């Protein structure tokens, strides 16, 4: 894997990417706390170049094959495109709802949205905002913007998970950026993966150099 990294992105490009991710995530957490009132810590991201055919194994390890873990996936599009994946340990749904300060619905039991749907809604909303914050800030630094598909949730080890993992083109390479997030107040943590594929690489390399260039 290491020798391949030299081909896909150079060490210098990797360093720029690392610093950019640090800045993007730092800015994102600051805004999340102040603007949305969600306090989350994001760790310094770990960046790896993974051959797509190795991606299923990487993801399975990362997700820990915990069939109860919840995974939210959201695709983003633009010059820089790929997927954001948030992996939450099982049972996080209820804790996250507390984060959103959602009150019990006062509606009739028959009219009420079932609890599992509300939990799911909470997961999707937080994920949408978290992924949007990180990718949004990152794109902003690189002078571009992306559009998003609606997020989807599935459980580790489910059919949807399998089909997501197998949906990547095996001849390609992905840059995987992993960060651990921690909603300290609510004792929920998990991790965020940003995968970007082969199509974005040329653009990304140029954008990284342009970014550094603007500081010269």
């Amino acid at each position, binding site marked *: 894997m290491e020798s391949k990294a030299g081909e896909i992105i150079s060490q210098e490009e990797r360093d720029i990417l690392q610093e950019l991710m640090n800045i993007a*995530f730092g800015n994102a957490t*600051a805004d999340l706390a102040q603007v949305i009132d969600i306090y989350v810590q994001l760790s310094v991201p770990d960046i790896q170049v993974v051959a797509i055919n190795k991606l299923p194994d990487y993801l399975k390890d990362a997700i820990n094959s915990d069939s109860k873990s919840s995974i939210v996936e959201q695709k983003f599009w633009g010059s820089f495109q790929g997927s954001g994946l948030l992996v939450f340990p099982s049972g996080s749904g209820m804790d996250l709802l507390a984060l959103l300060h959602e009150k019990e619905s006062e509606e009739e039991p028959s009219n009420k949205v079932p609890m599992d749907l509300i939990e799911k809604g909470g997961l999707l909303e937080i994920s949408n905002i978290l992924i949007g914050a990180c990718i949004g800030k990152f794109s902003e630094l690189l002078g571009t913007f992306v559009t998003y598909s609606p997020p989807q949730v599935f459980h580790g080890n489910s059919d949807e998970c399998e089909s997501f993992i197998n949906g990547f083109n095996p001849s390609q390479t992905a840059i995987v950026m992993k960060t651990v997030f921690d909603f300290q107040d609510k004792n929920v943590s998990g991790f965020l993966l940003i995968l970007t594929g082969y199509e974005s690489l040329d653009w990304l390399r140029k954008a990284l150099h342009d970014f550094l260039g603007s500081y010269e």
Partner: protein
Amino acid sequence: MISKILIVDDSPVARKMLINSIPKDKGYEIFEATNGQEGVAKYQELNPDLVFMDLTMPVLDGYKATAKIIELDKNAIIIVTTADIQPKSISNVMELGAFTLLKKPAKADSIVDAIEKVELKLANK
């Protein structure tokens, strides 16, 4: 007058970006350290006039390194650079005795401004 500047940051790119923004016509000697521990050691060795300190670093983070340096030299001038500028972080850092805080990515003019403020402070001593 500033003659020596020490930059402490684990990211080579961040150091490069900072160096490129520091005015080149003032004859500043610039030194680098890649983590907090190295930063403290270099401070003792070089006794720079100004330190740029990143917060998130391995081995010894920016908070601890700042505290240590100020312990060694209460007149140390430390400018903290960080991407996460929540009010809580800002007050934590200022309480430690940092001179000021710069948000990453720091544009060249804010760096130049900060350096000018330091020059002013040293001149008034």
